[in-house]
């Protein structure tokens, strides 16, 4: 039962693209889908899914809360790495080999952030599949000039200025969650930034891997796109809160209210 990789996929609606994500995940993995009981029924019969946790009964349950349920569930499997995927992401076939190669070379590091290709899907041309168009590469800033003191390492001071690491698609050692906590469920947005800042502040080494392990597809309803429609004022408030809160663990922060 000990599979070395656990993938957590929060799923808030019935969307067939989740099957593409599941199909892309290499065999030696445990897949945990965190969703509602209705969707659980819809998913029933899919052999590749190991666990379907049906806590998503309330529409307002936050994304980080779903991820935390997945993290709690992953403990049963004693994995080496936990990775969070959006339902429409795909994993590259060599992803595990890449992560294991870097984890072996840098055994002290806690979080591995491979590159992700952000792509836009294209319409079929008749019967012909058209490959997606590359829009951007993420997690690349770890390698850019002047960003980190040591190339490839996510620098705490630079992270304070801007978030340049996408948590989805990272490979996280479970002990990192155990030691420094999971995601703060009250954070509707910037939950990932707060967590990364907290890890970086606590000395967890976050290493960029200069190889692609994930494709993220851009849709109007993807989180990536949703971020764009949040107004600047709300963004600023959440950002300021994030930069004040990361000193505290998930259970020791103040009550959060954003108006």
């Amino acid at each position: 039962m000990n599979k070395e990789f656990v993938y957590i996929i929060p799923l808030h609606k019935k969307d067939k693209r989740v099957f593409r994500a599941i199909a892309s995940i290499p065999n030696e993995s445990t897949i945990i889908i965190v969703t509602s009981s209705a969707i659980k029924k819809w998913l029933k019969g899919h052999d590749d899914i190991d666990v379907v946790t049906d806590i998503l009964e309330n529409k307002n349950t936050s994304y980080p809360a779903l991820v935390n349920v997945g993290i709690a569930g992953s403990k049963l499997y004693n994995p080496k790495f936990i990775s969070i995927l959006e339902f429409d992401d795909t994993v590259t076939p060599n992803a595990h080999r890449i992560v294991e190669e870097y984890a072996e070379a840098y055994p002290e590091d806690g979080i591995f952030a491979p590159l992700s290709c952000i792509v836009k899907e294209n319409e079929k041309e008749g019967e012909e599949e058209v490959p997606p168009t590359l829009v951007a590469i993420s997690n690349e800033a770890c390698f850019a000039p002047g960003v980190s003191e040591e190339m490839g390492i996510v620098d705490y001071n630079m992270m304070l200025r801007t978030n340049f690491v996408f948590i989805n698609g990272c490979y996280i050692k479970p002990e990192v969650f155990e030691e420094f906590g999971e995601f703060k469920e009250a954070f509707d947005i910037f939950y990932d930034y707060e967590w990364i800042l907290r890890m970086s502040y606590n000395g967890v080494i976050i290493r960029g891997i200069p190889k692609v392990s994930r494709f993220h597809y851009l849709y109007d309803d993807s989180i990536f796109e949703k971020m764009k429609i949040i107004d600047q004022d709300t963004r600023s408030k959440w950002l300021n809160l994030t930069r004040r809160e990361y000193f505290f663990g998930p259970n020791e922060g103040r009550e959060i209210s954003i108006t």
Partner: protein
Amino acid sequence: MENNKRITVKDLQAIRKKLKGGNYTSYFFLPDFEKPSGGMQLTYNHVKCMNENGFKAKIVHQKSGFKPEWLNDYFEKDSEENFVNIPTIYLDDGKLPVSMEDFFFIPEGFPQLMESLHKQNAPCKRIVFCQNWYYVLNALMPGMSWDQFGIIDCMSVSNSQTEYLKMIFPNLRVKTVVGHIDDKMFTPPEKLAHKKLVVSFIPSRDGGTKSSNVIKTFYALFPHFKFIQFKELGGLSAEEYSTALRESTFYVHFDEYSSWGTAPIEAFLSKCLIAGWDGVGGREYMNIDNMWLAQNGDIMRLALAIGNMIETYIMDDVPKKVWEEMEKATQIYTKEKESESIINVHTEYREERVKEVDRLIEMVKKVEEKEGEK
């Protein structure tokens, strides 16, 4: 140089004996260039290898006491600060002690020296040591060739250069030697994951204009790769240079005119993926199986090749064959291969010189007999 004395059969027999007994010296002229040069290093290696294998060889520099300091990193020195097994003499110190049994090797870019030795009727065997095809005709007036300076032999450092030389000078006798790259100095890191996402390069020979243009074209064609860093390997010590290659994931070869090209082999040994031009001379080991090759001087194609190479790497799609072919290419230039080729070539030169002396003995004998009859 003792070139005005009339030679006798007895003299020639003594020369023959010296040649047969290995009692002669091969001199290698080198200009006093301060800047690091693969060609100079190769010649020093060549002389060292000859002395270690029963031949006598010396470097000939121009100014008295000149020493290329940058070579300190590559060669062992004795207590008097001289390179071990690399004796050096200087033109400024007076007459060159060359005799008929000796050999004098001249770099391809020095036709004035070839002419000067020809005019002085230098008695030694003169051979061009050609390390860069690009300078051969550039250094000569149109229509001229080395045989006009009495030179009919050439030692070349790559097969592709040898081919070129035979095409432009059909009567030239060309032998090919191989150089070696120190596989102890150029090594990969313990794990390839320890490499940095860096593209190393040595600027193009035009002062870096073309290499800069390629890099800018690459960024224009691949805007999503703006995070990729290029690192110029200039003005580094040997150790800094080998460390930089060891740490780099990629190397770009911007040399259009190399006769052999040491840097790509050093990069192969350091397990860098390579894109670049083959410089014509590198064709014997640089090919589409071991690198991302573009036609010499084609800026656009090289920029695309760099992009393709990086894409292939970050998608973890580099075929196993590329790594195997890189390794295979380095096997051509081992110390053993270098020694073998140097010993073979100089043994052949000696044998050929003995035959030349034999022919001369016959000729002089006839002249002496005729004179005796009178």
